[in-house]
Each structure stands twice: as structure tokens, then as C-alpha cells.
């Protein structure tokens, strides 16, 4: 593997006595899609929070393109190329769908501190937003208020925000959770497209094994916050750890 885009070294967080992420060391390369699996409460979301800066690490390091960002704020990491979609939908509810995405494009273009021009006079940002909406098939809802959207459409918008950011690292936290059978493919196809584009590292927390089988180049297993397995999908799925800790009892429990 060439130099990793993202790397965690001994990454750890303790909540009181509870170790939610326990010395996880892992590197993620460009063009690689890594599925992160583990039972509920294993620490997957918390691991993401440590990487993208929503939580401060108790120990260990996060390296982004070789640069130590362990102490950097979430906004700094975003500008350095970390893109994070959230497990629980986390949008700007009373703004329109288009404005949600436009805000991301505006952040990407670093125009946030411009207070003298009219926001509506930046057509390139609106175009970027519309382009991202097109990719998740939300164009027809662009002028709706987010709070009026169905759960599935909100999940798609969550993905659109990430697309507009064009990050180096895409982090999807159960992107299709709660989506209907006909909605999920829109998001999964998109993730496949991103993978085919190459150049980014993609981290995907996902429960559905068939999805993982078709998309993932690699699987890592978290169990009680620790890295329990790491390798090729076939190999990891066959291993005893996964059979026992994950596939055996948790798969139905999402």
C-alpha cells in the first residue's frame, strides 16, 4: 500500500472507567473501501467521532495524510479532507434542502466570512449544491424544508452533504439504516461510484453482510472497543472471531 490517507495509532477514549475505543491502530489507503463491523455498542461511532474530531482522544493519534490532527478541531479536520456523515441524521432542519448542501459548498470554498456580498450571488455554490443533490436523486425536493422530508430522503441528504464536501476520506456511519428497500440502492450505488472514482479512502460502518460482500475491499471488526480482526472480506468473515462475536448473534439486531 502507498502512504495511507488516514491512520490511527493506539487511538483510545475512556468514559470514566469504560473504554469505548481501546488502542485501535489502523491505516486506510486511497482507493480502498473498508467496512467496519461489530455489534451495537462496539465503539464504531465513537471511533468515527475520534477520527473526525467530535470527541477528544484520551490516548493515541489520528494522522491525516501523515499530519497529526489529534488536537485539531472538527472544522479544521474537515478542511484538511475528512468528510463525515452521521448515523443519526444531523441536518439544518428549518433550512431548505438546497441551502443545507449550499452551506457545505460554501464552507469548502472558504467563503464563510464573506459578509459583504449576497449569498445568492454565488452561483457556483448553488450549482455545486444542485450537482450533489442530483447525485442522490433529491433535485425535485431542493426547495423543501428539511423537516418536511421523509427519513429516507434525510439520509440521502446526509450523503449529499458529504458529496458536496469532496473530501479525501469519506466516513459513512450506517448510511442506509432505516431506509426502504428501494431507497437504499441509491446510496449504495453512489458509494460504489465514489469507490470507482478512486483517490479517496472510504470507511463504511454497515450491518448488512451482502452490502459488505459486494463493496468492501477490507473488513475491520471492532469488539468492545478493540480491533478484533482486520483483513480481506472472505478471510475475516470466515474467521472464528467474527462468527462468534458478530455474525452469530448480532446480525439481526440493527
Amino acid at each position, binding site marked *: 500500500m502507498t502512504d495511507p490517507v488516514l491512520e490511527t495509532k493506539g487511538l483510545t477514549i475512556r468514559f470514566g472507567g469504560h473504554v469505548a475505543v481501546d488502542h485501535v491502530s489502523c491505516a486506510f489507503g486511497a482507493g480502498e473501501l473498508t467496512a467496519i463491523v461489530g455489534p451495537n455498542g462496539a465503539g464504531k461511532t465513537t471511533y468515527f467521532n475520534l477520527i473526525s474530531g*467530535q470527541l477528544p482522544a484520551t490516548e493515541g493519534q489520528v494522522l491525516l495524510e501523515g499530519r497529526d490532527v489529534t488536537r485539531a478541531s472538527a472544522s479544521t479536520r474537515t478542511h484538511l479532507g475528512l468528510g463525515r456523515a452521521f448515523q443519526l441524521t444531523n441536518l439544518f432542519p428549518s433550512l431548505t434542502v438546497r441551502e443545507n448542501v449550499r452551506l457545505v459548498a460554501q464552507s469548502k470554498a472558504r467563503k464563510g466570512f464573506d459578509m459583504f456580498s449576497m449569498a445568492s450571488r454565488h452561483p457556483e455554490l448553488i450549482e455545486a449544491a444542485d450537482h450533489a443533490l442530483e447525485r442522490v436523486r433529491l433535485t425535485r425536493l431542493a426547495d423543501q424544508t428539511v423537516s418536511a422530508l421523509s427519513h429516507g430522503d434525510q439520509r440521502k441528504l446526509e450523503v449529499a452533504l458529504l458529496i458536496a464536501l469532496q473530501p479525501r476520506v469519506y466516513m459513512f456511519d450506517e448510511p442506509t439504516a432505516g431506509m426502504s428497500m428501494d431507497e437504499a440502492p441509491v446510496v449504495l450505488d453512489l458509494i460504489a461510484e465514489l469507490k470507482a472514482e478512486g483517490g479517496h479512502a472510504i470507511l463504511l460502518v454497515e450491518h448488512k453482510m451482502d452490502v459488505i460482500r459486494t463493496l468492501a475491499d477490507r473488513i475491520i471488526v471492532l469488539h468492545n472497543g478493540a480491533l478484533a480482526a482486520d483483513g480481506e472480506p472472505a478471510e475475516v468473515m470466515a474467521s472464528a472471531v467474527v462468527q462468534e462475536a458478530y455474525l452469530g448473534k448480532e446480525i439481526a439486531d440493527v
Partner: protein
Amino acid sequence: MLTRILSGDMPRSRALSLVLLVIFLCLAFAPFLFPGTRSLETAARISVFIALAASYDLMLGYAGIVSFAHTMFFGMGAYGVALACENMERGFLPVVVGTLAGALLAAAVALVIGLFSLRVRAIFFAMITLAVASAVAVLVSQLSAITGGEDGLSFSIPRELTPAFRFAEGKLLGASLNGKLLNYYLVFGGSLVIFLGLLRVVNSPFGRVLQAIRENDFRAEAIGYRVVAFRTLATCLSAACAALAGSLFAIWLRYVGPGTAMGFEIMIDVLLMVVIGGMGTLYGAAIGATLLVLAQTYLQEVMAGAAETTAGLPLLPDLLNPDRWLLWLGLLFIASIYFFPSGVVGRLRQARRPAGRT
């Protein structure tokens, strides 16, 4: 053209456009439409409070920051002008110096308060502003050698802005062509510039970020906006605009005192203006300020008239006694907040499509 001046923030409702147009025209031609000292006082006061309430709405309605120090910033502008005029040679220089000094001081104090407390929880910021504002108010009344204490300061402004200065003979539509007229247009024009400037800011990329932060600060940070920096900057800007409004008010009154520029009642008034008009829209601040100033100025008279016409009836004349005006003002507020939870502007726009901009 109009779109540009209003920064693309159109009223989006015919009724609202009409109300705003009426307010604008009445203020723009007040000296000719309503001759008389009292009505001109009222018009000037409305102009200043529109600017003040708009600057408060930038914080409260757009950035979602609750502050109780807004009158303190207003006072800094007012006292800045007063002290400069008091201590420098008469002319326009002290007015400019005092105005700039007041605005800079307000921005600097806002910066310090913001950096100290905006990182932590929003409620902490509200409490700090309350503490600082109370301390400054006490300080102003104690330092009577400098600030005039409770009595305040009367000071002289450039002659060109006083009634003694006549720039043309006779009258135009009932208005004397004197310095007072120029002073009024200084206040009106200044307030208008502040208001339109703020309108630009809230519709700029920066203003959109503030709205995003108000909606969901956690996500705003996650998509790359440094929330603390944005909140702090909004606070500084809002404080500076409040100070500018304060300077205009001092120039108009030729006087500052705790009651006109520092009192906590003003803080309550401004809060009510923003809430009644509708938070998160500067037009709401304009309407709220107009309604409140008018009510405060004329409610007593309206009531006196009403008491007279109902003189024969039981109980009513008593209730309508002008001495009860505060009670009625209070009831009006409660009613308006109850019936227009999203403010007058929200109500006027309600028939239209839901909130949320593109």
C-alpha cells in the same frame, strides 16, 4: 436595483411590503408630514431603535445568542459622543471621534466577552453579559465626575445641527429649514445605513453560516465552520452597530444619561421589539421598534380619549384611565406574543410558503 439595496431579502408578502413602505415613507418625510417637536422626537427615536433592534436581531434571531449587554454597547456609542463633545473643541471632529471610539470600544468589549464565554454554553454567555452590563451601569452612575452620574451629560453639538442654524429662510411644508432638520436627516440616514448594512450581512455567506449555527451548531462545526469564531464575530459586529445607533441617539438628544442610554428598561424594550416583530428577520425588528415606540409614546393619549368617550359606562373609564397605560402595554405584549408566536412578520408571511431560504 431594489433587490441589491435590500440584499435580495424581499419582504415576500404584500401586506408586509406595504407596512414597511409606510414606515419608511413616514420616517423619510416625518418633518414635513408631522410638523411639531413631539412627532419629530418620536420619528427620530423610531429610527434609532430600528437600527438598535436590528443589530440585536443579528445576535438573537440569526446567531441564536442571548445577550443582556446590548444597551451597554448602545451606551458606549452615546457616551463616546458625549464625552468627546464635552472634552474637545466644538465641531464635527469630536462627533466623529466619539462615534468611532464608541464603536471600537463596544467591539473590543464584545470580543473579550465572546472569547471568554462563547466557547462554553450559551447560557453562560447570557449570564456574563448580564453581569458585565450591570457592573458598567453602576460604574457609569458612580463615576459622576466623568459621566455626569445619574444626571447625565448635556453637551453641545456642531451648530449646524441645532435649531439655531438656519440654512434657508422661511418654511418648507411647515418645517423650519434649520439645523434640527439636518440633525433629523443625519439620524434617519445613519439608521437607514446601519439597517441596510445589517440586511446585507444577514444575507451574505456569513449570515447564512450564522443561521446554520443557530439551527445546529454541532453540524455547522462538522462541515467546517469554526462556530466560536463566527459567534464572536457576530457579537462584535452587533455591538459595534448598537454603539453607532447610540451615537446617533446622543447626537439627536444632545444629552446622555443612564435613563436614555444605559438603563435596563431599554434592554427589555429592545428584546420586546425583536420578539414582537419576529426574530430572525430584520424587517421584524423594524416593525417591532416602530410599534413599541409608538405605543410608549401615544398609548396614554389614546387611553385618555377612550376614557372620555366611555365616561358614562361603568368600570371602563377606570380601566382606561391613562395611569393604567403600563398595564395595557403589558397586555398588548402578551396578546401579541400569544397570537403571533413568530412575530408580526411571521404572521404577515404565513400565507406564503414555509420559512427557509435558498
